[in-house]
C-alpha cells in the first residue's frame, strides 16, 4: 500500500483515517520525494501509577537511518515506542513528523502517519490463520468487502519469499511456536509498507540464520529510504546494524553513541551502569547419575501430526544439556510433554528412575522439576495477577504459603519481596499486576519462581528471552549454580549463543528427531548445519 492507495482510502472516506490523514507526510512526500522525513519524539514523559516510565525523552529518526534503542528491562523502551505508535497517550510531550506535531490518539493515526511496528508481545489473533493476521486492518477485498484470500496468501508468500521468513499462510497462529509467530509479526509489519518501522525485540526468538535474514531485511528497508528503530538486548546486533545507538536508563536517555566508537562491554556498562561479565564462567561439568531418561518418545502436535518423532536421550545430574534447533521442530511439544502439560503418543519418560510418562504436571512439579515455559504470557504467568500471586502460583497450596484453608499472605509477600530484590525485578512494588511489568521483568518473575526451591531437574525454554545483559549474567550464573549443586539441566533455545555458553552437551533437534549431538565446544557452523537438517549424525560425539 503506497501513499496513493492511502490517499484513495481517504477519498473514499474509509477506515476513519480522514482527519489525520490530511496531515500525513506520505501525501506531501509524493511531491517532494527527495526530502528525508524525520520522526521526532519531543519531551515525552509518561507517568504510570508508581512508575515514571519515560522522563522527558527526546528521540529522532530520519528516513534511511537505523537507530538502536538499548536499555535495561523496564527502562521504558517499549513504553516510548507505544507512545510513538499511538497505543499510549503521553503524560506530556509530542510526536512530530518533520516538525509538524501530529495527533496520536490511536494506532490508526500512527499508521496514517506511515509508522509500522513489530510488538514485543505479539499482536496476533491466535485463532486466525497467518494470512488473516497479516491482512487484518488492510484487507484485500472484492465486492461487498469479500476478502480476496488468494491475494492475502500471496501477500504473505511474497514477503516470506523475499525476506526468507518461512511460514505457511494457512496455519493457525496458535499452532505456531513463538519463533514462527515472530516471523508472522515481522511479515505483518513489512506488508504495511510504512515509512518508519519500529522493531521491538524482533530477534529475541530467532535463530542465528534468521537473525542474519532479518538484518538483510533491515538493510533492504534502509536502502528503500525507511527509518528504523530497533530494540534488542543483544548488543552485538545493535553494533552490527545501527547507525546510531541510543541508550535508556530508568526512563531517561543517558547516552547516544555510534557503533564504531564502542564495544559490547562498553554498551553493557552504559546500560547497566556497571561493568558486566558477558562471558559466563563455567567449570568443567561432573555428570553423575541419570536424572531424566527419555526413551523413544513421540508426541503429536495440535494438528495431530508427529512433532516429536521417537526421541531418546538422557540428562545427568550435574550437567547442562542444550537442545538447539530452529523453532517449530518439535521443541515445544517435547518440553510440554516432559513437564506433563501435553500427553505423548508413545515412548516413556523416566525421572530419577521412575516412570512419569502419564503423570500430571503437578506430580512432576512435585518431583522437584523447574519449568520455564517458552511463552511467558501464555503459560508462565497469570497476567491479571500480582507479582506476589504469580510467585506463589506453584506453592500456594502447601505450607508455609497456606495454613489449612487460609492463605498466609505475609509469608507470600516476604518471598516476593526477597525474589524481586534478588532477581532485580524492576517494579514499583510486589502488588502490581504482572501485566504492567516490562517484558524482561515478567520473564524474571518466572525464573525467580522456578529457581527458588531445591530442584533436581531444570527444564527451561528460552530462559533469557528478552532479558537484559545484566540480568542474563545473573540468570546464567544461577543455572550453573544449580548444575554445580547437582541438578540436571535441560535448556531449549533457538539462540545458539546461549546454548553454547551454557551447555556441556548439545543436542540438535530437527523435524522431531535428534539430528546431531555435540559437546559444548563444537563450532557454531557445525551446529548450525545440523540445525538445518544437515549431516549432523556423522559428527556425533
Amino acid at each position, binding site marked *: 500500500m503506497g501513499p496513493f492507495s492511502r490517499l484513495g482510502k481517504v477519498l473514499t472516506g474509509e477506515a476513519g483515517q480522514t482527519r489525520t490523514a490530511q496531515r500525513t507526510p506520505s501525501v506531501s512526500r509524493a511531491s517532494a520525494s527527495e526530502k528525508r522525513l524525520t520522526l521526532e519524539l519531543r519531551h515525552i514523559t509518561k507517568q504510570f501509577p508508581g512508575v515514571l516510565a519515560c522522563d522527558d525523552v527526546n528521540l529522532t529518526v530520519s528516513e534511511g537511518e537505523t537507530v538502536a534503542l538499548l536499555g535495561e528491562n523496564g527502562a521504558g523502551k517499549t513504553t516510548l515506542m507505544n507512545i510513538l505508535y499511538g497505543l499510549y497517550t503521553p503524560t506530556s510531550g509530542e510526536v512530530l513528523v518533520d516538525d509538524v506535531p501530529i495527533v496520536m490518539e490511536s494506532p490508526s493515526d500512527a499508521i496514517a502517519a506511515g509508522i509500522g511496528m513489530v510488538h514485543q508481545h505479539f*499482536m496476533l*489473533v491466535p485463532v486466525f490463520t497467518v494470512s488473516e493476521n497479516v491482512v487484518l486492518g488492510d484487507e484485500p477485498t472484492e465486492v461487498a468487502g469479500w476478502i480476496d484470500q488468494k491475494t492475502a496468501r500471496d501477500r504473505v508468500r511474497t514477503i516470506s519469499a523475499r525476506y526468507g521468513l518461512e511460514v505457511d499462510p494457512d496455519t493457525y497462529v496458535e499452532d505456531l511456536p513463538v519463533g514462527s509467530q515472530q516471523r508472522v509479526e515481522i511479515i505483518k509489519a513489512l506488508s504495511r509498507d510504512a515509512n518508519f518501522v519500529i522493531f521491538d525485540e524482533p530477534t529475541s526468538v530467532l535463530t542465528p540464520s534468521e537473525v542474519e535474514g532479518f538484518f538483510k531485511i533491515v538493510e533492504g528497508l534502509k536502502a528503500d529510504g525507511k527509518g528504523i528503530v530497533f530494540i534488542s538486548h543483544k548488543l552485538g546486533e545493535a553494533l552490527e546494524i545501527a547507525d546510531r545507538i541510543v541508550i535508556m536508563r530508568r526512563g531517561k536517555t543517558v547516552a547516544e553513541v555510534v557503533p564504531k566508537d564502542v564495544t559490547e562491554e562498553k554498551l553493557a556498562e552504559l546500560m547497566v551502569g556497571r561493568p558486566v561479565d558477558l562471558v559466563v564462567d563455567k567449570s568443567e561439568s561432573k555428570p553423575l547419575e541419570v536424572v531424566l531418561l527419555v526413551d523413544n518418545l513421540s508426541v503429536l502436535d495440535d494438528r495431530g501430526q508427529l512433532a516429536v518423532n521417537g526421541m531418546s536421550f538422557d540428562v545427568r545430574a550435574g550437567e547442562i544439556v542444550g537442545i538447539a534447533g530452529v523453532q517449530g521442530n518439535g521443541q515445544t511439544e517435547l518440553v510440554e510433554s516432559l513437564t506433563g502439560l501435553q500427553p505423548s503418543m508413545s515412548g516413556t519418560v523416566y525421572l530419577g528412575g521412575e516412570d512419569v510418562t502419564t503423570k500430571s504436571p503437578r506430580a512432576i512439579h512435585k518431583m522437584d522439576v523447574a519449568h520455564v515455559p517458552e511463552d511467558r504470557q501464555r503459560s508462565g504467568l497469570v497476567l491479571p495477577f500480582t507479582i506476589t500471586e504469580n510467585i506463589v502460583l506453584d506453592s500456594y497450596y502447601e505450607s508455609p504459603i497456606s495454613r489449612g484453608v487460609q492463605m498466609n499472605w505475609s509469608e507470600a509477600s516476604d518471598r516476593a519481596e526477597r525474589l524481586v530484590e534478588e532477581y532485580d525485578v524492576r517494579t514499583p512494588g510486589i502488588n502490581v499486576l504482572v501485566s504492567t511489568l516490562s517484558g524482561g521483568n515478567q520473564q524474571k518473575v518466572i525464573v525467580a519462581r522456578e529457581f527458588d526451591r531445591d530442584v533436581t531437574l531444570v527444564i527451561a525454554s528460552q530462559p533469557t528471552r528478552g532479558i537484559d545483559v545484566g540480568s542474563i549474567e545473573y540468570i546464567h550464573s544461577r543455572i550453573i549454580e544449580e548444575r554445580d549443586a547437582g541438578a540436571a539441566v535441560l535448556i531449549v533455545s533457538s539462540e545458539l549463543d546461549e546454548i553454547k555458553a551454557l551447555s556441556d552437551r548439545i543436542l540438535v533437534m530437527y523435524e522431531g528427531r535428534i539430528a546431531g549431538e555435540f559437546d559444548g565446544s563444537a563450532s557454531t557452523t557445525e551446529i548450525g548445519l545440523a540445525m538445518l537438517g544437515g549431516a549432523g549424525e556423522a559428527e556425533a560425539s
Partner: protein
Amino acid sequence: MKPESDTAIYEGEGKRVTPAERRATIVGVILIVLAVFVFWVFALGSEAGVQSTFKLSLPQARFEDLAWTVNSRWLGFIVSGILAFLGGMVLRRSHVKWTNLALAIGLILVAFAFLTWAASGKSFSLVGMLRATVVLSVPVTLGALTGLMCERVGVINIAIEGQLLTAAFVGTIVGSAWGIWAGLVGAVLTGALLGAVLAVLAIRFRIDQIIAGVVINIFALGLTSFLARRVLSEATHLNSPGRFSPTKIPFLGDIPVLGPMFFNHNMFIYVTFILVIGLHFGLFYTRWGLRSRSVGEHPEAADTVGINVYRVRYRNVILGGMIAGFGGAFLTLAQVSRFEENMTAGIGFIGLAAMIFGRWMPLGVFGAGLVFGFARALQQKLGILGTPIPSEFLSMIPYIVTIIVVAGVVGKARPPAADGQPYIKD
C-alpha cells in the same frame, strides 16, 4: 473456523487416546443404550400389527393425500437395529471424524421412532410438525444470532430476552396504531435502542456485562407487564396489530414436504434464512467479519492494526439488538398478533443456548434453532395427538433439550477469547 485440536489424553493407566477417540467411545455407548431403549419402549411398546400413518402434505395443498403408513413395531425394530449398527461402528473408533454425523443420524432416528410409537394406530401430520419446527425455530435462531453478533465482538448479551419482549410490545402498539410495517420498524428500532443501552453500559461504563444484561431483562419484563396490564387491557384496540401473511414462493413452495417446510411462510422466515446465510458468510469471508472477530478474540491486536475497537463493538451490539427487535416483531406481528405478558417465556435464554450449541457460527446456530424448534413443535403436536405422557412433561421438552445440549453432548465449544472483557485503553 478452526478445527478442534486433537492431541492425546490418557485413558486409565498408560493407555493413550485422542479426545476424539474418547468422545467416540462415549457416543458409541450412548447409541447402543438408545438402541436398547428404542427396542424396549418404542418397538415392544407398540401393539403388534398396528400401523402409524404420517401425512406428508397439508390440507388443500397440491398433493393433498400424500401419506406414508408403516408398521409401528417393525419400524421400532429397524431403527433399533440401525442404532446398534451405528453404535458398533462408532465404538470401533476407526473413523472418528464421523462420530458427530453418526450421533446426529442416531438422534433423528430416535425422534422418528418416538413419533411412530406416539402415532401408532393413528394418523399424524408429519409435514405440519416439520413446518412448525421451522416456524418455532425462528425466534430462537434470531435470539441466538443477536447473542452471536455481540459475543463475536467480545460483549456478552444476556439481555436478548428483554430485547425480544420489549420489541414485541412496541411492535404491537405501533403496529396497531399505524399498521404492521410501522410496527416492524418500531420493533427493530426498539431492539437497536436496547442494544445501544447495553453497549453504553458494557463498553463505555464497563459495568459487568452479565449484570447489565440482567438489569435490562428485569426492566423490560417489569415495564411491558405493567403497561400491558394498565394500558393494553383498557385500550384493546392497541393490542391487535394484524399479521404479515404468508407468501408462497412459486415452484419451490409446491415441492412435497420441503415446500411447506421452507417455502410457504411469511417474510420473517425468509428474512431469517437470508440473515443466517448472510451473517455466516459475512462473518467468515468478509472484511467486516474478520475485523469483528479480531475484536472479540484479541482487541489489542485489532487496535494495533488501526481497527477502532469501541466502534466495532458499538456497531455490532446495536445491529444485534436490531436482530432481536426483528425477532420480537415476529412474535406479535406474525405468530400471534397480540401481546401477552412475558410472552417470550425464556426464548431469549434458549437463544443463548442455541448460540453455544451452534458454536458461535450462524449456520450452526440455525441448526441449533431447528433442534429447539423441533422440541417445541413436538410438545405442541403431541399434546394434540394425545399420548400417555403427561402434558407437564411435554412442556418440559424444550428446556430439557436446552440443558442436555448446553451440558455438552456436542463436544467442547470455545467462545471468543475476549468474550465479556471490557477493552481498556491506557
